[in-house]
């Protein structure tokens, strides 16, 4: 059984997406572990990692997502394990998961060093698991190059089977290659692929936004799988909004205070994919009834419009296990732009 650990130099580089794409591309029986969880999902009084839950569903992994993660917080890990038995725990987890799988993907914490104080950082796990290490990088091209150079020059990879780097979400692949390919080649970093930025992957579903904002769903429960392509802050009157081109887009999400009846009504009439009602103010019952009739999700939140907009702006668009379109894009990206399949 092959074991591969994916890590990144910065958080949200796209490790989970690459694992999903690769898993789909190789068509083998896969196992998955994320020892240090970072995307909490609290269900039925137990804590899961969101990525573990998604991957479990996509690949029909029998192992419960709850058992794929040792902890989410340093204090919990320190309380439960010491330096030695955490390594033993990792090894025993790998043994449990390994049976009946062709390949085991291990995903590190949010970045390469996360968890080092509790022996749960990527390099420690790689050694303990005797797994190939793949580093995923993304972001601004100059930053990527700086980080990789620093990584190569100042990180000891002794005893680690370092397979190479995947450069993810690159806005201009040709430009990146032209400027940096030679430099990276000279420092002997193996580039396993350069994946172009795909806008479609950045659009979150209403369900995801609702979960992240801990919103109360007032109406339109059945329409929560819709994708948000545009976010519109309804700070003007309903009439003024209707004159704006952006307001006419169908896949827009409106953020407005619950007492802005004119804005909410205008939004419902233009077929938005959802409305976030801020300040914990419920609209009039007739407006709620209309939204229910038209199956427009109304999401009630306590925070104000500014904070909601800021949170959505900073939100990481995670993949949903039912979003076949996005999963297809991830698979194609691995096949078309990387050599990862050859490692399998």
């Amino acid at each position, binding site marked *: 059984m092959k074991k591969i650990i994916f890590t990144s130099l910065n958080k949200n580089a796209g490790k989970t997406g690459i694992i999903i794409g690769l898993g789909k591309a190789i068509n083998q029986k896969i196992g998955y572990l994320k020892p240090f969880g970072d995307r*909490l999902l*609290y269900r039925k*009084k*137990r*804590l899961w990692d969101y990525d573990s839950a998604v991957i479990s569903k996509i690949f029909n992994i029998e192992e419960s997502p709850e058992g794929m993660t040792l*902890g*989410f*917080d340093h*204090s*919990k890990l320190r*309380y*439960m394990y010491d330096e030695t038995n955490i390594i033993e725990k990792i090894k025993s987890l790998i043994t449990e998961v390994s049976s009946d799988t062709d390949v085991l993907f291990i995903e590190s914490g949010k970045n390469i060093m996360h968890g080092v104080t509790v022996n749960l950082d990527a390099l420690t796990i790689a050694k303990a698991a005797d797994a190939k290490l793949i580093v995923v990088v993304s972001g601004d091209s100059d930053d990527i190059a700086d980080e990789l150079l620093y990584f190569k020059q100042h990180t000891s990879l002794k005893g680690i089977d370092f397979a190479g780097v995947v450069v993810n979400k690159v806005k201009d692949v040709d430009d990146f290659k032209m400027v940096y390919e030679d430099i990276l080649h000279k420092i002997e970093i193996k580039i396993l692929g350069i994946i172009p930025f795909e806008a479609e992957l950045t659009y979150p579903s209403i369900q995801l936004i609702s979960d*992240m904002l*801990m919103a109360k769903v007032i109406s339109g429960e059945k329409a929560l799988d819709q994708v948000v392509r545009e976010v519109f802050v309804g700070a003007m009157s309903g009439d003024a909004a209707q004159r704006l081109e952006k307001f006419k887009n169908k896949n827009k999400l409106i953020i407005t205070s619950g007492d802005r009846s004119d804005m909410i009504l205008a939004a419902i009439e233009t077929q938005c994919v959802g409305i976030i009602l801020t300040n*914990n103010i419920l609209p009039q019952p007739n407006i709620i009834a209309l939204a229910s009739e038209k199956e427009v999700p109304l999401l009630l939140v*306590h*925070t104000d419009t500014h904070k909601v907009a800021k949170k959505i702006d900073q939100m990481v668009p995670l993949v949903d296990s039912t979003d076949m379109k996005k999963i297809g894009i991830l698979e194609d990206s691995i096949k078309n732009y990387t050599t990862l399949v050859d490692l399998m």
Partner: protein
Amino acid sequence: MIGKTAVQNIGLSSIISVGNKSDIDEADLVEYLVKQDDTKSILMYIEGIQKGERLVNVLKEATKKKPIVVIKSGRSKRGAIAAASHTGSLAGADEIFDAIMRQCGVLRAENIQQALDWCKYLSKAPIPTGENTVIITNGGGVGVLTTDACEKYNIRLFDDTAYLNHLFSDVTHGFGSTKNPIDLTGEATSAEYEHALEVALKDKQINAVLALFCETAMIDANSLSSMIRTVYEKYKKKEKPIIFSIFGGEITENVITTLSKDNVPVFRDVYDAVSCLGVSYTQFRYVQVVDGEERVPKVSIDKISTIVNKALSDGREFLLADEGQELLNIAGLSGPKSGIARNIKQAVEIAEDIGYPVVMKVVSRDILHKSDVGGVLLDLDNKEEVLDAYQTIIHNCKVFKSNAVIDGIEVVEQVKPGTEVIIGGRRDKAFGPIIMFGLGGIYVEVIKDVSFRALPVSYRETRLMVKEIKSFPLLLGVRGEPRKDIEKIINTIYRVGYILQNCPRITDIEVNPLMVYEQGNGVKAVDIRVMLSESEGKN
């Protein structure tokens, strides 16, 4: 007002208009008027109250000496209430005004005519000596209507049927009724009607009479006026209250106008008549009440002030969970077992010490509405669930506010279910410290079944607060359910009121929910929220 009262022959000893900028307010005037012999009753029209705390104290005393009727405008207006606590959001300013006026023995009229009717009646009528009222009528339907009105205005009808039959069988026709209402029927002659009223007058067990008259062929309407006048004079002489309500044609209408001008209590509508007797009884009951010696709860205000001052010196205008718990302990109120964990190890230790299941709540000066941010997790049954809950709460709070100062995680015994009630106290802008009691639970905001009092409140009055809510039968136990520990509820309200009254820097206290168990098993304050202010007595 002068014209109106002149038409109705109501004597005015004083008519005083207080401008907004006058330094004499309602309390000063009531204090003055209550000492004036030529003032029999006081009518106040109020738009707003400035120094409500003093007014309450003055009214409580004044109404024991003279009836005070009030009309307040702005019934429908919701007060500008801060929604920091349920106490503020569960009632508008008018509900609070209404409750406090009742507490002070003030009679609140719906409209000007009713207020004038009440004042006129209360100025002239004798005070009842007991609660046995009898309705004497020559019309069945109007008798039933009056019975309904008596229920509305809380008039207790004399119900000793055997005794009433003994008294009135001689004056009642065969198909009439000697049950209260005494129905003489339309067959009754003027003499029989008058005789029935004579019987009621002479009887010592009957304390008040509602005399209803419908114009019939059996009674000469022209003699009606003199008959009523004669009967009224006899009742007046014996100081027994009687009120007439009469129905008929032009002659009867003229009788009402004439007698009314002569200050004989005659009304067109039974509800007007009954309401007058009703307020007379309200006044009667208020004067009878003796609060007795007040209990002073063993609560160290000094210790509570120390907690409050520490929180204020930390720059907080609210108490943290552990401080609230300490306040409960000082107040002698029972809360669930709890402890504050500063790390995950302590959380497990506290949970194991308390015993499962437990509840975990964030303790943070930056997070007031803990549930809204995922800062409260319930029903945790074992160590693994506590570990997961700890990590989740920390994560949720950081997501809500990345720089939130988290003072710890409170691990609390999950109390067993009971009847949930809410007790709240706050400093009202008009009346100063007030206390609220009501049914709690998830429907509290919808049902709004609450009662209010201005502080200080007597132990007897606190008991009335509990009885006053519509859901009181739930506390008594319905459909075979056992009675709840009502005494412990009263004790808790009394203590919360005492703390608010004596700690001027506390602006709001809310015990929500207070879990009430069967009688003898006590209550548990599941959560307490305390808001503070740097300046004393600020609302």
